[in-house]
């Protein structure tokens, strides 16, 4: 972190002034943005950082001797250090990606390349043999599921999963029997984007380590909401997306333990990731550059650095504390509305982020969303890129409300009040 964690509580009213979009009105109503789980809104500081770069220092990085290029390179590498620091990592452990999906594909394809003999002797540890197992969870976002399915198809590996309980908790007993001798990779979310529960990383990492498997953490839904220390979590690799953590679109991070990144063969190839290139072959730079082919999203990296600086100034502990308040109000409120079923209604005391997905008995999620929108309330409806999890709960779609550091308790109340009118409007229940 770039600053000591703030000990003062977060005042959402002050924070709101930093987000220009919050002044928007939807019809006659003020915008109540409860869709931060899909994408976050951006504080002015992030927009300003990008604009300042584009109008004052824009140039290709790592490639020119001219002044603008040198300035741009410095800003860009400073951004890497800042974002790496935000997740507890060293700069060379942070690979820029275009987002979490790209980061997870990078890992899966790099393993596929190792399997095809690329990357030399060091990479052999990643190679998969037919029958080797890749383990994910039943709660996965498609981004942390389909790349592994495709890798399994390409290599003959077998994809297995850790089931989820009715209360949304991962079944750790089952995990202990799913993860075993043949397990080579264990990929799981820090926080599911439907359940909002903070998963037991230590337990899963311990199981994976005991099996000698590589661990891959999807930190998309934790990075914006908790103080993250990825090395302390002891995972091998982790991904996050800038646009979900107050930053720009088109940028994300792949964190990797140094020994893992150093041994992993490249994925995307092209300019800026090579040492010597002939027409027949190329040799590659060490990480992180090895994984950063082509012109990188420079202004977006600088924007993401501004975003995590902003989060650090507010203080991630304060963010989490505020969102815990919201989360309890949200869930308690939803529980008291007739005909609402919460997905992942875990025991009290389980750590979570302020995100709740739910089903309204007799009213389709899409109609609920439309009803809420008419009151200025933006929620997400659908399967949230987690079809298997919805199927597990007997649903095709749900409604998801997800808060952010700028969400107020009043907004949660406005939302709850609206939700309690849904079934009446559509003429179901009572």
């Amino acid at each position, binding site marked *: 972190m770039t600053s000591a964690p703030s000990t003062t509580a977060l005042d959402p009213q002050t924070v709101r002034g930093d987000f220009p979009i919050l002044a928007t009105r939807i*019809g006659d109503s003020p915008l109540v943005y409860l869709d931060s789980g899909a994408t976050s809104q951006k504080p002015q500081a992030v927009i300003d950082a990008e604009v300042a770069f584009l109008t004052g220092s824009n140039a290709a990085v790592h490639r020119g001797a001219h002044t603008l290029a040198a300035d741009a390179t410095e800003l860009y590498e400073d951004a890497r250090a800042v974002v790496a620091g935000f997740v507890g990592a060293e700069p060379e452990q942070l690979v820029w990606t275009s987002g979490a999906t790209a980061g997870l594909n990078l890992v899966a394809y790099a393993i596929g390349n190792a399997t095809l003999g690329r990357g030399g002797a060091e990479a052999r540890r990643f190679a998969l043999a037919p029958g080797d197992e890749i383990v994910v969870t039943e709660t996965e976002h498609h981004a942390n599921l389909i790349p592994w399915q495709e890798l399994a198809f390409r290599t003959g590996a077998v994809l297995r999963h850790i089931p989820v309980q009715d209360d949304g908790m991962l079944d750790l007993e089952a995990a202990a029997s799913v993860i075993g001798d043949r397990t080579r990779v264990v990929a799981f979310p820090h926080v599911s984007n439907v359940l909002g529960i903070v998963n037991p990383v230590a337990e899963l990492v311990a199981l994976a380590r005991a099996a000698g498997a590589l661990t891959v953490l999807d930190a998309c839904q934790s990075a914006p909401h908790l103080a993250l220390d990825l090395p302390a979590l002891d995972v091998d690799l982790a991904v996050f997306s800038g646009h979900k953590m107050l930053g720009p679109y088109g940028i994300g991070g792949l964190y990797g333990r140094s020994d893992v990144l150093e041994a992993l063969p490249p994925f995307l190839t092209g300019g800026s990731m090579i040492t010597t290139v002939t027409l027949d072959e190329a040799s590659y730079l060490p990480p992180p550059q090895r994984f950063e082919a082509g012109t990188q999203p420079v202004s977006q990296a600088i924007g993401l650095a501004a975003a995590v600086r902003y989060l650090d100034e507010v203080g991630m502990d304060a963010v989490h504390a505020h969102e815990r308040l919201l989360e309890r109000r949200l869930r308690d409120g939803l529980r008291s509305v007739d005909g609402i079923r919460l997905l992942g209604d875990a025991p009290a005391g389980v750590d979570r982020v302020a995100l709740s997905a739910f089903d309204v008995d007799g009213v*389709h999620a*899409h109609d609920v969303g*439309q009803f809420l929108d008419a009151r200025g309330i933006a929620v997400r409806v*659908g399967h949230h890129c987690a079809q298997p999890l919805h199927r597990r709960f007997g649903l*095709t*779609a749900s409604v998801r409300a997800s808060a952010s550091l700028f969400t107020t308790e009043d907004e949660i109340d406005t939302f709850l009040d609206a939700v309690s009118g849904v079934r009446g*409007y*559509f*003429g179901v229940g009572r």
Partner: protein
Amino acid sequence: MSELDSLYQELILDHSKRRVGFGLTDELVGVATSHQHNPICGDDITLRVHVEGDVVRDVTWEGAGCAISQASASMLASLVAEEDGMSRAEASALVEGFREALRSRGTKPLDEEIFSDAAALSGVSRYTARVKCAMLAWVAFEDALARA
């Protein structure tokens, strides 16, 4: 009438519950089925059309979805039933006209003379994110006709 009420008119909510044509008929000669899926919300519909020669006899369907998609399927089935014996060409023209209105962003309302109850879906065209919901059954209809 609020904006929301103009989207969810009584007639629409009513059709979404009544679901005219719900329950698939048997697969006979001249019967064709189309399955359509909306990947965004996971909704789907299985729609079956019965054609005799050039005459569209009836439409039946099954599926789960939002009020708009259910009402739209129901209204389509009742329209086909009312028209009793529309030709393939008429059916195609109907789908085309429906599509055009739904994509018009509120500029081309559906004519009640032609579309009967389904004309109540005109309001959907102002909600671009919901156009697919209303179109689902009609796309299935078009597809099934092409197979029948």
